């Protein structure tokens, strides 16, 4: 079985490398070991989304039973999205679970993840806090997601207001990422975030 998996990844690797999405710099895969079980993926944030301009790194683990079972994929780059855990990078996407079929490939997985960044499914959330913000304060969600893209994925949109608030918490001795999480979770209300951090 392991042999089928390795052969399959080898073929797919060529397929992804040759595909036109790579030429457009939208998706990329890289091998991390010579047994074809660990790969690094990269997707570009889709245009007209808060993720635009960012590059998101994925950890891809290929099980011995591939392609009968899906690869295990996780975001390494921190991201603010209802279907992706802001803590662990775990992804809630049906084709990575029960809707997987053997005909799918790494290329389909990466393209589906890119599509997920364009169209979130807040009713099937992986991160409850993000999903709640997405549904109840979408403008704040857009600001937060864009800010995280800027900080963690190299996106171009600097948000001075967010950076200032984080700096104020940092001045109180709070670690930067922790401050960002608290502010993001409380719609960037400095007072409520501070209260939570010091409670």
């Amino acid at each position: 079985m392991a042999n089928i998996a390795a052969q399959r990844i080898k073929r797919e690797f060529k397929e992804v490398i040759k595909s036109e999405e790579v030429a457009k710099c939208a998706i990329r895969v890289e091998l991390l070991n010579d047994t074809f079980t660990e790969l690094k993926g990269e997707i570009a944030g889709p245009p007209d989304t808060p993720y635009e301009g960012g590059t998101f790194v994925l950890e891809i683990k290929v099980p011995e039973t591939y392609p009968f079972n899906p690869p295990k994929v996780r975001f390494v780059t921190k991201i603010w999205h209802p279907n992706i855990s802001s803590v662990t990078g775990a992804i809630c996407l049906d084709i990575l679970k029960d809707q997987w079929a053997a005909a799918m490939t790494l290329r389909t997985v990466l393209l589906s993840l890119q599509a997920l960044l364009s169209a979130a499914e807040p009713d099937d959330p992986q991160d409850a806090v993000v999903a709640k913000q997405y549904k109840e304060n979408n403008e704040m969600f857009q600001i937060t997601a864009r800010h995280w893209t800027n900080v963690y994925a190299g996106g171009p949109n600097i948000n001075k207001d967010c950076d200032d608030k984080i700096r104020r918490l940092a001045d109180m001795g709070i670690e930067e990422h922790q401050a960002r999480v608290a502010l993001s979770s409380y719609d960037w209300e400095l007072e409520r975030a501070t209260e939570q951090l010091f409670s």
Partner: protein
Amino acid sequence: MADYFEEMGWQPLAEGQAPNHYLHFARLLRDFNIFDGLSEKLPPPVSKKVLESIPTITLEQDGKQCTICLKEYCKGDTAKQLPCKHLFHNTCILPWLTKTNSCPLCRQEMETDDEDYEAFRKEKMRAKQRESDIENLHNSMFS
């Protein structure tokens, strides 16, 4: 702070109450996908009888692709055809069917030699049948 706990579906601790560390640990395990592996247990393999009866067909033209290895078939190649009509190389599909009982493409299940699983599978199929019967009845009444 009460609203935050409510949002999260949590309850603040009462006076003198200690946090439930097991619960926290379970949440941590869940967040790191530790439980995922447990639910991945596959149904048993296809029954010997069904496995032996799966026909081998000879392809009459090039072009189609085996979705397991992604290689294209050439005219004259042989392939296994499952009851759902999906085709695979013998060497590609065999290792899978000795592990579990479904088509890797459409997930259609085949009979197994496992009695307990068969009882469960038949119950599942009956439930599906009932659902479609009701749907048909509904459609015939209201169309």
